[in-house]
C-alpha cells in the first residue's frame, strides 16, 4: 500500500514503505520536541553557569570566558552544531547536546549582559554593603530578579534548537533512520513531493507552527512583564 491517499483509517495516507504517515508524524513530534527541550536544558544550564560566572566574578575570568564566547559566536550556529556532532558522535542524545552546545555562547552572552545591568543597581550595592557574599548575591538576588528574562531568552533558544535540530535530522547526521523525526521525514519525503506531498509538507508545517508558537510565547512573556 505504498503512497495510499488519506483515508479515515490512515489520516495522512501512507509513505513509500506503506507506513502510516500520521503515526510517524506523531512519533516525530515526540522526538523533535523532546530533543529540542534537551538541547535547551543543556544550553540554559551551561549558559547560566558561564554567563553567571562571568557576570559575578568579573576580572580575568570574565575576560577569558567572553573571549571564548566571541570565538564560538563567530561560527554560524549550524556549522558549530555540525562540528559538535563530529566531536560528540552522531546519535539522538549527542546530537541534542551538540545543538545545546552550539546555542550556549549566545545564551551565555545574554546572561552576562543581564547580570551586568543588575549588578549596577542600587539594591545589589546595598546587599553587598550589608556584607553578603558574591554567591549569596547571585543566588538570592541576581537570579530571582532575572527569572522572567531567563525564561524569555529560553524560548528563543528553544525555537532555534527546534530549527537546528530539524536541520541536523534533515542532513541525516543524527543516528538511526528508523526513529522518525520531523527533519528526517522532510528529508525522506521530498523525493515524493509529486506523488505524496503530505509526507514532507505536514512535518514542515508542524515545525513552523511550533517555532512560531514558541517565539510568540516568548514575546507574550516579555510584554507581560
Amino acid at each position: 500500500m505504498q503512497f495510499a491517499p488519506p483515508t479515515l483509517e490512515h489520516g495522512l495516507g501512507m509513505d513509500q514503505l506503506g507506513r502510516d504517515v500520521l503515526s510517524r508524524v506523531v512519533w516525530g513530534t515526540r522526538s523533535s520536541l523532546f530533543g529540542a527541550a534537551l538541547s535547551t536544558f543543556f544550553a540554559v544550564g551551561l549558559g547560566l553557569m558561564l554567563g553567571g560566572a562571568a557576570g559575578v566574578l568579573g576580572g580575568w575570568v570574565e575576560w577569558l570566558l567572553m573571549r571564548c564566547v566571541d570565538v564560538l559566536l563567530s561560527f554560524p550556529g549550524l556549522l558549530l552544531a555540525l562540528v559538535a556532532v563530529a566531536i560528540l558522535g552522531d546519535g539522538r542524545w549527542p546530537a541534542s547536546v551538540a545543538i545545546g552546545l552550539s546555542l550556549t555562547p549566545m545564551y551565555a552572552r545574554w546572561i552576562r549582559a543581564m547580570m551586568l545591568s543588575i549588578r549596577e543597581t542600587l539594591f545589589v550595592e546595598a546587599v553587598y554593603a550589608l556584607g553578603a557574599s558574591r554567591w549569596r548575591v547571585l543566588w538570592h538576588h541576581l537570579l530571582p530578579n532575572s527569572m522572567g528574562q531567563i525564561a524569555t531568552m529560553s524560548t528563543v533558544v528553544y525555537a532555534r534548537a527546534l530549527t537546528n535540530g530539524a536541520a541536523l535530522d534533515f542532513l541525516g547526521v543524527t543516528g538511526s533512520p528508523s526513529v522518525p523525526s520531523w527533519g528526517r521525514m522532510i528529508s525522506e519525503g521530498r523525493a515524493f513531493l509529486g506523488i505524496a506531498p503530505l509526507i514532507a509538507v505536514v512535518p514542515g508545517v508542524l515545525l513552523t507552527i511550533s517555532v512560531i508558537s514558541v517565539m510568540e510565547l516568548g514575546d507574550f512573556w516579555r510584554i507581560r512583564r
Partner: protein
Amino acid sequence: MAWFILRRLISICLSAFLAITLSFLLLHLVQGDSAEASLFQSAASDDVLERRREALGLDLPVLAQYGRYLRQLSNGDLGKSWFGGQSVALLIGQQVGPTISLASSATVVAIVLGVGLGILSAAKTGCWVSHVSRVMTGASLALPVIFTGVVFVWVFSVLLGWLPATGQGGFRHLILPASVVGISAGGGIARAVDAGISDILRQPFMRTALAKGLSRWRALSRHGFRVGLLPVVDVVALEFGYLLGGTVITESLFARQGIGRVLVTAVLNKDIPVVLGVVVLSVVLYSLLNLFADVTHTWLDPRIRMTL
C-alpha cells in the same frame, strides 16, 4: 586607520588561533580513537594498520600532532583527507565556488528583500503597508529553511514546473536555492533597516527637513538613507558569513555541490582533517568579512573616522 586595521588583524589572528586549537584538540581527544577505528575497519593486518597510522601521523601524541598541524597550516597546507587521501585544501578549493555563488546570490535576494521591507516598515509607520511588511519580516525570521525549501520545490518545480528542483547549472538552477536562503536571511536585514530608519526619523535634522516642506519620502531619500542604512553594512557582512553556513541545508536540499556537502560528508565519515579545514576556512572568511564591514563602516561614516 592603518593602526585600526592592524589591531583588528591581530585580534582576528588570535581568535582564529583559539578556534583552531579548540576544535583540533576536542576533535582529536574525543573522536580520535573512534575515527581511527572506523578508518581502519577495512584494513587487514596489524602491520598494514601500523603503517597507515604512521603515514597519517596518528602514532604521535595529540600535542605533537597539533604542532605538526600548525606547522602545516602556516605553509597553507590543510592536510589530507583520511578517506580518499586528497589534499583538503584542494577538496575545499574545488567546492568553494558553487557555495560562494549561492551565498552571494542569496545575499542579493536578502538585501533587496530586507532593505525593501525595512524601509516600508519604518517609513510607513501606522499604515497597513508597514504592518504587512513587519509580519513578513517576522515570517522570514521564523520560517525554517527546510520548510520554505520543501514548499518552494513543491510549488515551483513539482506543481508549476517552472524551475529545476535539483542540480547544478546555470542561472535557472540558482533561483530557487538563492531565494530560499535569501528569504531566511532577509528578516535580519529588514529588522536592522527598520530600526535604523525609525531612529533617523526621530532625529532633529529630519524634523528640519520635514519642516522646510520636503515630503516624507523626499526627506528620507535625500537625507535619511545615507545615515539610516549604515547598520545594513554590518548586518550584511554578518549575514554573508552566516549564509556560508546556511547553505549547508540548501545544498543538501537542492542536491548542489559545495562546502556544506563536504562538511556533512566529513562529519558522517568522521574525517577530522576535512572538518578542521572547513572550520579554518569559515573562521578566516568570517573574520575578514567582519573586518571589511568595519572598514567600510568607518569609510562611510565620518563621525567614526574622527574618533579613531
